[in-house]
């Protein structure tokens, strides 16, 4: 799934500039706890979250996350957008809730990129 499909499906808006490379998204995970994200997300995923601070972008950089969707109409602070532009991580906002946004993407064929148990390894 590419970025524009993701935006259309989540009825979202892109807050950052267009990424310079082709942004192919292979899977998704929804979470608010960044340690959980770091522990469980596979590379090349989109992260759906209600958390809006710069740490989400840092987590994305570290964990090779391709894009971030902020749910429930939550708007990130300017620092977060600034950092995302620097790190070339697209930020999308949507009015949808976390469950609904995840459901729509799952139905559209985007697989879960969240490890099911701690025994699995993302590495």
């Amino acid at each position: 799934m590419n970025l524009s499909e993701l935006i259309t499906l989540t009825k979202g808006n892109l807050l950052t500039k267009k990424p310079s490379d082709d942004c192919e998204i292979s899977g998704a995970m929804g979470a608010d706890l960044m340690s959980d994200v770091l522990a469980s997300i596979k590379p090349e995923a989109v992260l759906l979250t209600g958390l809006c601070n710069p740490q989400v972008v840092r987590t994305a950089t570290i964990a090779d996350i391709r894009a971030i969707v902020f749910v429930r109409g939550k708007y990130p602070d300017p620092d977060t957008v600034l950092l995302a532009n620097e790190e070339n991580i697209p930020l999308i906002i949507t009015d949808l809730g976390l469950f609904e946004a995840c459901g729509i993407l799952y139905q559209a064929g985007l697989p879960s990129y969240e490890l099911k148990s701690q025994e699995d390894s993302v590495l």
Partner: protein
Amino acid sequence: MKQIDISDEYAENITRVEELAYELRINEVMTENVFSLEPDLKMEEALDIFQDKRFSGAPVTEHDKVIGILSIEDLIHALRENRMDATVRDFMTANPTTVRGSDPVVEALKTFALTKFGRLPVMDKDGNLIGILTKGDISNGLLSALQRDYHAEELIRYRASHLFEDIVSGRTSLILRYDIRKGDFIRGGNASSKIKRALLRLGASPQIARRCGIAVYEAEMNLIIHTDHGGTLRVEIEPHKITMEAYDDGPGIEDVELAMKAGYSTATHEIREMGFGAGMGLVNIKRCVDEMRLVSSIERGTNLYMIIYLNDSEQPSED
């Protein structure tokens, strides 16, 4: 969907090029050493020059000042009217729009859009002709700038990845140090991002860079959240292993075994609101690194050692 794809891709390219259009100066992309025409030249002679030199347009100068521009269209115009014995002055576009060489390329793009001229004489600050600019010059200039950017990054990557081969010693290592301030949530993870980028430039695989990144990021957040005054991140990169260390001067961990348990956390509500303090930090670190050692005392603070081996054969067997 397909149509949106194409237009989006198109838009992405425009955005990148647009950035360059602000960075590049007109005098970096223009054609220099311009051939200019005398105003009293016959159109017939101008045609010969255009044919001979394969011009599609040229500025007209008088006493070193640009007074007009003659294009192929003007020649066609004269041919149609059968007035090839008229002078360049009669058919040229007088007082053409010019651009300044020191202006960014985007200014010329605006002028092209507004005026529909095919070429613009380029002037220096004293009004002297220093070149001529077509849209083709801009395209070429932007393309070579894009290529330069690409090569520059490639070169940095190449040089960095050969660091350990180029510098020979008994034991070569590269040490990165970062001071981490307590409570600095805004910049939290900044050091870890830099460490990850450095590793990629040094030629580490994406998997290794990711493992180091996650481990060191959790350690960085621990310094920000749990220390009295912050602490230090130290990463030593050697050809066969990466040693990461996070140390602080307090308050120390009372029960190290308990701290290592998944889900155990002493973080406050505020920290959890920020997405941390789930009690997974040390657990995450342990899963990412090959060796981990946590030494802590109430008097001396905490030292966390993390090692990732780069060569499979040197990796100790899993316990």
